[in-house]
């Protein structure tokens, strides 16, 4: 009999999402959609504000990754005052990078320990009342404690550079707000009040061991669940094509690893991307113009970044990257669940980078701000934890923002997440007469691998409840699970 399955809200993600899956009269999946139900209107209401307010306002797009927006906007505003990323003073670049690595570290730790781990530790079909961070804290207290302290470490790095853990202010047009004092960095090195950076590196390695073992124990599941071919997009280092989170060139590859976007400078992004709009979701669908809507979409985020890069500049993370690549015989990795593994390698990379920055005396410098010649337009592109983030502003000669374009990381993952939902619908719900809670959670497990930031993505504030609706082949609602 035909039905409509609804999952609403998708939980343990940031933001609101709703899934509707339509089954025909033979219980075959005829449609599956991931609706994003939030909209805020950022690109319009920021117009008329003075340009220096942008980094402070736009970070309120998201409470998990405000720093990503703060830095991307700051890079764009730097250009407005005539400063390109390489023109910043060296200390300012390093302080910004310290902030960025700190935030990627905490965001990834949050996602893995607080949001994703319940599915991995208890199983996708386990008791929903326990399948959350509280359950993990009860059943695996040592692991939970490490996760909490890793997130704390990252948050404290953010507080050091931005003044507050969430929605701080670290940047000023052309530079940074303040330097680091010698005694401030001791806090992260001496291990007295919080576990120090060496412990962070140690724990990052431990958790990667955990996921590698998990992979061996659950190989079929991790290799095949929600896996499908796709393009991949990310920044790479301008010199050597290595993993790059702060400033690089745009590279994209197809599912087999052929280059589709050949290290394009960030300032040219506009020539390559369109965003498609659909009626049934507030989230747009970006794609590469020259490949078209059907083939031009790309995954972004840890899996994509480890696919497009040619290596990692820090020793431990590079070694782990080699092991990761070996799992697919050094071919492009399209296995969605491996994103968790990729994410943990990035945690390690960030920890190693934080260590070398903390030991760098350039942080103490007072050479923090540069000035240049005013321009009308500024573009800032950065790798947020969840993927490539694009900020673009136009400013008039009275200092007002006149135009704003934001392509936020998770927006690129809109099409991929819809594919993931369809995959689970086809492989898990297709042909079944009874839909269980565990099956529906599997849809969410596929979505969670992307660590979506749905508020960011729709420049909308608010939550999208995740609704899974089951409709018959006539489109009539048969069954609906609305969680609200």
């Amino acid at each position: 009999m035909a039905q409509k399955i609804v999952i609403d809200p998708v939980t343990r993600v940031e933001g609101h999402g709703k899934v509707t899956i339509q089954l025909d009269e033979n219980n075959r999946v005829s449609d599956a959609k991931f609706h994003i139900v939030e909209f805020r209107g950022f690109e319009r209401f920021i117009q008329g504000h003075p340009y220096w307010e942008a980094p402070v306002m736009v970070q309120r797009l998201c409470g998990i990754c405000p720093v990503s927006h703060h830095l991307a906007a700051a890079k764009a505003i730097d250009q407005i005052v005539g400063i390109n990323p390489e023109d910043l003073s060296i200390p300012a670049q390093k302080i910004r990078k310290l902030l960025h690595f700190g935030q990627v570290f905490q965001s990834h730790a949050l996602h893995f320990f607080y949001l994703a781990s319940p599915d991995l530790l208890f199983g996708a079909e386990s008791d929903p009342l326990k399948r959350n961070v509280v359950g993990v804290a009860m059943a695996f207290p040592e692991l939970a404690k490490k996760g909490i302290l890793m997130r704390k470490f990252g948050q404290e790095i953010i507080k050091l550079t931005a003044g507050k853990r969430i929605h701080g202010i670290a940047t000023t047009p052309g530079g940074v707000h303040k330097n680091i004092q010698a005694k401030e960095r001791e806090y992260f090195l001496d291990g007295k009040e919080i576990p120090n950076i060496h412990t962070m590196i140690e724990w990052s390695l431990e958790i990667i061991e955990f996921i590698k073992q998990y992979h061996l124990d659950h190989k079929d599941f991790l290799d095949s669940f929600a896996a499908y071919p796709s393009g991949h997009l990310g920044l790479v280092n301008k010199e050597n094509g290595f993993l790059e989170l702060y400033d690089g060139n745009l590279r994209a590859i197809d599912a087999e690893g052929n280059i589709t976007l050949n290290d394009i400078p960030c300032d040219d992004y506009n020539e390559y991307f369109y965003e498609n709009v659909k009626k049934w979701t507030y989230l747009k669908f970006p794609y590469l113009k020259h490949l078209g809507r059907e083939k031009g979409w790309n995954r972004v985020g840890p899996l994509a970044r480890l696919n497009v890069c040619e290596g990692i500049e820090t020793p431990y993370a590079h070694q782990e990257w080699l092991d990761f690549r070996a799992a697919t015989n050094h071919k492009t990795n399209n296995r969605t669940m491996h994103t968790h593994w990729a994410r943990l390698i990035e945690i390690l990379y960030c920890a190693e980078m934080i260590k070398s920055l903390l030991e760098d005396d350039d942080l103490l410098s007072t050479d923090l701000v540069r000035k240049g010649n005013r321009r009308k337009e500024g573009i800032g592109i950065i790798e947020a934890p969840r993927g490539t983030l694009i900020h673009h502003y136009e400013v008039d000669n009275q200092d007002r923002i006149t135009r704003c374009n934001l392509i936020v990381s998770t927006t690129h993952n809109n099409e991929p997440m819809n594919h993931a939902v369809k995959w689970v619908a086809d492989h898990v719900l297709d042909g079944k007469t009874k839909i269980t809670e565990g099956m529906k959670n599997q849809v969410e497990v596929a979505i969670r691998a992307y660590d979506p930031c749905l508020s960011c993505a729709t420049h909308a504030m608010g939550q999208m409840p995740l609704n899974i609706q089951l409709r018959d082949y006539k489109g009539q609602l048969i069954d609906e699970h609305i969680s609200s």
Partner: protein
Amino acid sequence: MNNSINLSIDGKKVNAVKGMNLIDVAKDNGIEIPTLCYFKKLNPLATCRICTVSVNGRNTTGCTVKVEDNMVVNVHTPELTANRKAIIEMLYAEGNHFCPSCEKSGNCEMQNWGYRMGVTNTRYPHVFRNKKVDFTPHRMIMESNRCILCKRCVEEIKTHDGKNVFAFVKRGKNTLVQIDYKEERKLNENEALHAMNICPVGAILVKGIADNKPFGERKYDFLNQQVKTSLKNKKIALPKGEKFVVATTSLAGCFGCHMSLLDIDTELLDMLEIVEFNKSPLTDIKKFSKQCHIGLIEGGCANNENVHILREFRKKCDILISFGECAVMGGIPAMRNFVPLQECLEEAYLNGLTSELGADIIPAHKDIPKLLNKVYPCNEVVEIDYYIPGCPPNAQHIWKVVKSILLGKEIPIAHEEFKYD
């Protein structure tokens, strides 16, 4: 003739020189009368009214009082304190005082009095009026949405040749401060900065001055004071062996308040011994499975789904707390209240820099919620019991309020934890 006189202020016997301003006399004797428009150099403006005190039994503005012998002055009575708080709340409701992105935040006199009076929210409906923001002057920006019409700038700022730069124009609730462009050009950078500094709020800005001191180093970041939550609910009876039940949701919020909730780090493990989470984005409990003691609401109402969820929370939770700037005041999402919704949608979906050629679809579908034409703070939709301001609120602040309510015991909040930005 001897000009020395005696008066009493809040019961304290005080000696002063006859004819001195009451504000100054009180301050010299350790009693601070709240003021916003008072500026020592100028004749009293008496525009803001928060210095209202009782003199010899009659309420009057303290700044217009010249002290006389045997005056009996009362400053901190419950009624006067409540009136002052109401005035601050009215000011917040009337303008667009979004502290998180304001250049003056941390150095703002209005914000400071809000903190000192323990103002957590405004009981008045937010007006969301769209006043002009004037970018035309040479060095300055006049942000009329933040202006409280104190008149300091009008009276104080003059060019080197004695001409006025600022003036009140129009009347009644349409009154604005207008900058004289010709005269303003004569001001040098220091004079412009002086104007920005004497403004008690963030209405006068000097172009290009994006900097503020870092958090913790601003003028009003630290004060040796505490704020009380003022519990008003009955003590919660909890059967032995059970935990308090807390539900949370993020409506039109960025999730930052939820992240701040987690920012007590390992203390969370201690809290979990007495608290369990029910419906929340952090758990997979998608429908309320029981009545909850407390509901924490992040985010205001931007679409019909938000309203529906908020109303459900009101039913299923004994106590509702709005936490965060968005839930309390509307926040960033409410910035779209100044722009027609149609324009916001068109900019995002039709006219964007990366919109497809000939793009003509704006999302609208039965499976996605309908947007409200305005974003509303939660207390304009349902009754809210407590408010925790901040963007996001300080983690300690959140849990102190929650614990105070659950355990029935006031835990004071330190001034540095009580912030609007």
